[in-house]
């Protein structure tokens, strides 16, 4: 399983071929503002996401990362400003959110309009390496398997915009490595725009084209991640970018500890 994914990773890691200047953005946000009571969480966000672009959204807890994602997912329409998404949106949540009383294949095709949903589910599950588990009940899956099923459910809709709300944070370190590889592989094949909300600086550096740091309700800083793919943690730019990001996030990094 792991070897299959890692084997294909080299293809998957080919540099993304999108032209950010000519393509219509898949998501466009202008002065998005959101307040809960008298607490302003988002205070004038501007963001353009190109088709096929992988964007990581970082920020300390409570900076409104998930609020922004929920707005893009259409789960929260009560905000000011402009927000438009051109195409279909799919979401993978922090918890896999599989419906426990539906078998895995039925979870994958929940709400999907398709002439042969079972075949679509099987294909999507095979892609994430869960082909054998199509008939299983969600409660029999491990955490990593459930998160794969959740990815299959998001991808079966062939979204133009894939929103990932910290979907890897609850996985153990080893599972996370394989799922990272899987996400890159699926991204390379289907080319959705991806917005990944994460706390994990390394995750952003391993996956994204661009990292945005939220602070004070705004996009405080934007980091183009110009590392060659496949990404390697021992690349000198990796460490440099990591320190810059951590500093922006308010985590002091001493020489030698990173």
């Amino acid at each position, binding site marked *: 399983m792991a070897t299959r994914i890692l084997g294909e990773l080299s293809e998957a890691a080919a540099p993304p071929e999108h032209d950010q200047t000519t393509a219509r953005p898949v998501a466009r946000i202008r002065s998005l503002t959101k307040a809960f009571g008298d607490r302003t969480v988002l205070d004038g966000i501007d963001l353009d996401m190109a088709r096929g672009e992988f964007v990581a959204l970082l920020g300390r807890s409570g900076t409104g990362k998930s609020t922004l994602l929920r707005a893009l*997912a*259409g*789960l929260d329409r009560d905000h000011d400003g402009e927000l438009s998404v051109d195409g279909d*949106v*799919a*979401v993978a*949540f922090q*918890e896999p*959110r599989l*419906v*426990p*009383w*539906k078998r895995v294949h039925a979870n994958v095709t*929940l*709400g*999907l309009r398709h002439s042969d949903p079972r075949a679509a589910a099987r294909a999507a599950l095979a892609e994430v390496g869960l082909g054998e588990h199509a008939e299983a*009940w*969600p*409660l*029999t899956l491990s955490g990593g398997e459930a998160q794969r099923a959740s990815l299959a*459910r998001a991808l079966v809709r062939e979204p133009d915009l894939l929103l990932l709300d910290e979907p890897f944070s609850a996985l153990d370190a080893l599972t996370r490595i394989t799922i990272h590889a899987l996400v890159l592989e699926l991204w390379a094949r289907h080319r959705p725009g991806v917005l990944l909300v994460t706390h994990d600086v390394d995750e952003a550096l391993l996956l994204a084209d661009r990292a945005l740091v939220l602070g004070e309700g705004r996009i405080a800083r934007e980091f183009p991640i110009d590392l060659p793919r496949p990404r390697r943690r021992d690349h000198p730019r990796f460490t440099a970018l990591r320190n810059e990001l951590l500093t922006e996030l308010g985590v002091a990094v001493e020489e030698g500890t990173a």
Partner: protein
Amino acid sequence: MSSTTLRPTTVRPLRLPSARWVRLISPVLIVVVWQIASSTGVLPERLLASPATVITTAIDITRDGTLPHALAVSLQRAAIGFGIGAVIGIGLALLAGLSLFAEQLVDPPLQMLRMLPFYGLIPLLILWFGIGELPKIVLVAFGVAIPLYLNTFAGIRSVDGKLAELAQVQQLSRLGLIRHIVLPGALPQALVGLRQSLGVAWLALIVAEQVNADAGLGYLIDNAREFLRTDIIIVGLLVYSLLGLLTDAVVRLIERKALVWRRGFLAS
């Protein structure tokens, strides 16, 4: 409660054989003592018939058709009452569960009715509906509707809001949300209500049939009292118990089929 501080080996004073048949010893012993007490005249027949008499009587009233007829009448009452009560209970629970406005209308009176000791309704039911089939069926329906309503309503409201959010993201229609998320999610709790309501149904029937009935199990028992036939009373009670056991087994079977996805059933 920490498991590390509990040492069950020192808590248990005696090592008992754990075979299943061990649990049969005391019930058999009770029946034997009961039979001996009856045979020696310590326990007079007019207070409690002997086990042997109960068995012969059971066979007799089954053969002459008394018991089957009474059973058929009671079963019919229970089934009709249960059917009506289930439709009302589940129907109202769906209304109140799926609409906040309906909840405001439906829930307060039902919460009040729930506190009513409904056997206390019998005098009123007799005044309203006479002494025929109707008051008995109404009583059973009432007893069934309340626990089914309460549990189904609670079940609907306990469905995880995150799954509702998921349904929205997956672009399920409102009908799809109800069908795929809300109703299956409410089912475990609704089945708890079903089990309670079946228990109540038999209880309501026993009470209703001992008041002004001219047929059915309750009538059989009440009639036997007038002729001091404790054997028939015991047979009637045993039949009630068996019916209770039987319906419970049916609900268990339904749970096994309908809730296969749950951890408890997956393990077995």
